[in-house]
């Protein structure tokens, strides 16, 4: 009698043990799956942001001095979590990854733009003395909104017109990137390119 009850108890314990093991495997698999899926999602957004920067940079590099070009900046899901910003080669507070050059960056919209660009953003350096990013739409984030000196502009979720221009005179050269047509012009005095 006692032996039968003991065997029954052992069976029940074994079943419970197997159930617990399977449940643990299941939970681990589900957690792994969620992490994997979210990483695919995050990587996709990040890859699109990087591609956006490369598209702009690629077109800038194809320009000769004095030339300009207009093209469509294709949006993507989560684009409004990213900003585009730029620094000239003498500007303070630049991301370290820009080294001593002018740079154009696409970075996550979080906290200090320079810090965000350094930590999680993508930057492309140029030999121009300056790179200017401008925009004139309701979506523009101005200095005061961000609380920092750097101007940064949201990427579009559907499409935006991007105009690029390479300005060069005897003493300096800079690239101007306009995400929407803008009337006013900026001038960035800078040291000449050797």
């Amino acid at each position, binding site marked *: 009698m006692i032996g039968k009850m003991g065997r029954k108890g052992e069976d029940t314990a074994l*079943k419970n043990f*197997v*159930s617990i093991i*399977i*449940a643990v*495997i*299941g939970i681990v*698999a*589900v957690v*792994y*799956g*969620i992490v*994997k*899926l*979210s990483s*695919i*999602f995050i*990587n*996709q957004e990040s*890859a*699109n942001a990087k*591609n*956006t920067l*490369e*598209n*702009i*940079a*690629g*077109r*800038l*590099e*194809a320009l000769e001095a004095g030339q300009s*070009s207009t*093209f*469509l900046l*294709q*949006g*993507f*899901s989560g684009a*409004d979590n990213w900003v585009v910003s730029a620094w000239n080669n003498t500007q303070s507070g630049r991301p370290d990854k820009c080294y001593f050059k002018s740079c154009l960056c696409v970075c996550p919209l979080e906290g200090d733009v320079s810090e965000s660009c350094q930590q999680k953003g993508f930057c492309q350096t140029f030999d121009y003395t300056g790179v200017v990013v401008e925009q004139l739409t309701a979506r523009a984030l101005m200095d005061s909104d961000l609380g920092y000196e750097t101007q940064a502009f949201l990427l579009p*979720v*559907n*499409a*935006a*017109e991007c105009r690029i221009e390479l300005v060069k005179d005897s003493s300096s050269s800079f690239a101007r990137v306009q995400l929407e047509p803008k009337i006013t012009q900026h001038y960035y005095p800078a040291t000449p390119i050797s």
Partner: protein
Amino acid sequence: MIMLILAVLGFLIVLAFLTQLGTDSYSSDEICKLSVLSRATAAEVLPGTQASVPLQCTTNKICLAAGDNGACAQFTGEKSVVKIILPKVKVGDSASEEQQALQIERHLAESMYNCWNMMGQGKLDIFGSVSKELGFSQAQSACVICTRVAIADDVNNSVLARVNTEEYMERNTVPGTSLTYVQAMTDGATSSYSDFRSEGKGKIESTEAVQIEGSSQKETAFVFMQVKSKTIGDVLTNQLQVAGVVAGSAFVAKPSSLVSAGRFVFTPAGAIATAVIATGVAGTGAYNAWQGQIAAAGYCGEFVSKSEAKQGCSLLQAIPYNVKDIRNLCGTIEGNI
């Protein structure tokens, strides 16, 4: 116990498939198609998980050039551009021009058909139940830009003037099938483009006028758009009457009808249905002929979905790749650049 084991095994199989996404094991079109199916079925299996499945569709970039030296300025600075050299044209030889035009038609038709197929022929609910989580309302349209086709500067305008994709799709069969492109895209329901010009059959209250304009660039984007709403039914019925097609079936639209008065199109802002102003397409001659290749295929009716709002429309439209036209059609864009 057995159910639990099967569930875990099933999950691991799905996971194994998902981890394969993004690897070189599949072509980009296959990855896109699988991700579309995964997203559409995710909501069926586990409601609320649709947004967790990323749409892995990358915009294909095709440059059609007449020779090795031909270049598509439209793709300057962009990566992964596929350049296709068209058959040579002899000066003044109409037969060779016709041959080159035929190849352009073939690539445009294939781009359109492939996009339609990848997107589940418009019948799958791809964006609907994720719309709020992705930051846009249900009535707003969402798009995937499947392919951008650009014409290189060395392709003659006289060749472009001969391009007639609409006719090509009505007459030629999809490789490996006995159906023409038009039949294949409409489940064999029709073999020619619907005539949207029969005005007055149905009436849609126009809320906003949209103007489709030509572009200075010879670049066409094949854009898949989907819009869904709980109260879309009545509007759909009217629209389908105008189009002369049956609710719940796929249709194709004459390119010319897109620039004629009374044609109804979708807008990103308000559910659907706004009249297109008949201002025509900018430019003349060969340029007009190229711009005339604005074809559309669609499906309006119930989606395969468990969500409350089942009705909606899917539209695959070839439009000039410019900001205005993209914005007119798409509230938001998904997929990879």
